[in-house]
């Protein structure tokens, strides 16, 4: 019995030691970490490096308000692609995006942007209802719809996310479950699997990191 107790004690202190070290190590890690990568092609123009940025876009959100690149001027944002009638990965993505929404509540410079890839079904009214049912504010989380071609094109060429109609798929679309982290200059700074909790934890850490360098 005493032996067991000792074992338990030493086990507990090992755990404590481990936790202490992990915290120290993680702390050191965040401080010393390299800046977030910048995704996509880059080219040299004179002495300047020009990075891939999100192309100009114009969509309409759940309040019928126009949402463009200007909406995200001087903002960090997280983008994804989904549709409300999807039963496969979207509900998981939305659950995870709600986590991001909660985690960034006190961060006025962080916004969320969800594009529907089924604009025929997902009307402004439907997106409004959806956002309201999620209990989220439209000024922090824009659910946008627009021309189908424009949405698919920006998904592919700007965000490097797959989105297309495919009647053979369950629910009729194939799309990636990616969350994209965009900095204040419109550059992609991270790509995360929005269906995995650990990946979304990493996103939340990266948002904080990006804010520590003023979002650029």
């Amino acid at each position, binding site marked *: 019995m005493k032996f067991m107790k000792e074992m338990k004690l030493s086990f507990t202190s090992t755990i404590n030691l481990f936790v202490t070290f992990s915290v120290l190590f993680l702390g050191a890690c965040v401080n010393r970490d390299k800046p977030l990568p910048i995704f996509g092609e880059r080219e040299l123009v004179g002495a300047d490096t020009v990075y891939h940025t999100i192309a100009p876009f114009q969509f309409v959100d759940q309040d019928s308000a126009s949402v463009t690149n200007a909406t995200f001027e001087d903002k960090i944002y997280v983008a994804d692609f989904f549709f*409300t*009638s999807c*039963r*496969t*990965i979207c*509900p*998981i993505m*939305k*659950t995870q995006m*709600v986590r991001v929404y909660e985690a960034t509540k006190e961060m006025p410079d962080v916004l969320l942007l969800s594009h529907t890839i089924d604009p025929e079904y997902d009307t402004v009214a439907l997106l409004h209802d*959806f956002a*309201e*049912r*999620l*209990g989220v504010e439209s000024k922090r989380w824009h659910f946008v719809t627009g021309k189908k071609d424009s949405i698919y094109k920006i998904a592919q060429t700007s965000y490097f996310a797959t989105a297309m109609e495919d009647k053979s798929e369950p629910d009729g679309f194939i799309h990636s479950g990616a969350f994209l982290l965009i900095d204040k200059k419109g550059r992609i700074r991270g790509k995360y699997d929005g269906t995995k909790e650990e990946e979304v934890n990493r996103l939340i850490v990266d948002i904080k990191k990006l804010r520590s360098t003023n979002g650029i």
Partner: protein
Amino acid sequence: MQACGLSTNRDTKFQQYYVKGEQLYIQHCSNCHQKDGRGLGLVYPPLAQSDYMTQNVDQVLCLMKYGVAGEIVVNGKAFNKEMKGVFSLTDLEVAEIATYIYNTWEHNQGIIDIADVTKAHQKCGN
């Protein structure tokens, strides 16, 4: 002895339904209703604590397969987003899922049998 044997058989059957039901739940239901049964906002209703489930067993057995549209009220909150049914589910599979959801979280209703499903489906299937 016989009673004991009977009860063991029932337990085995319950266990089989429950285990298979959990797998089917993860596969067909948990994306929306969540693994912990808590649902999401007013989009996907909770199952973990649900007066609707307790009061509408037959409807629940029906909607898994045939879907449900229009407003339903769960714990005093109105939900109104169509759920498509999983038409490929057999009566046995519906019974397994039901056994799982009706004996997890706050629920403790015992086994839901194929006969219960078949009976409920006679009312909603046509």
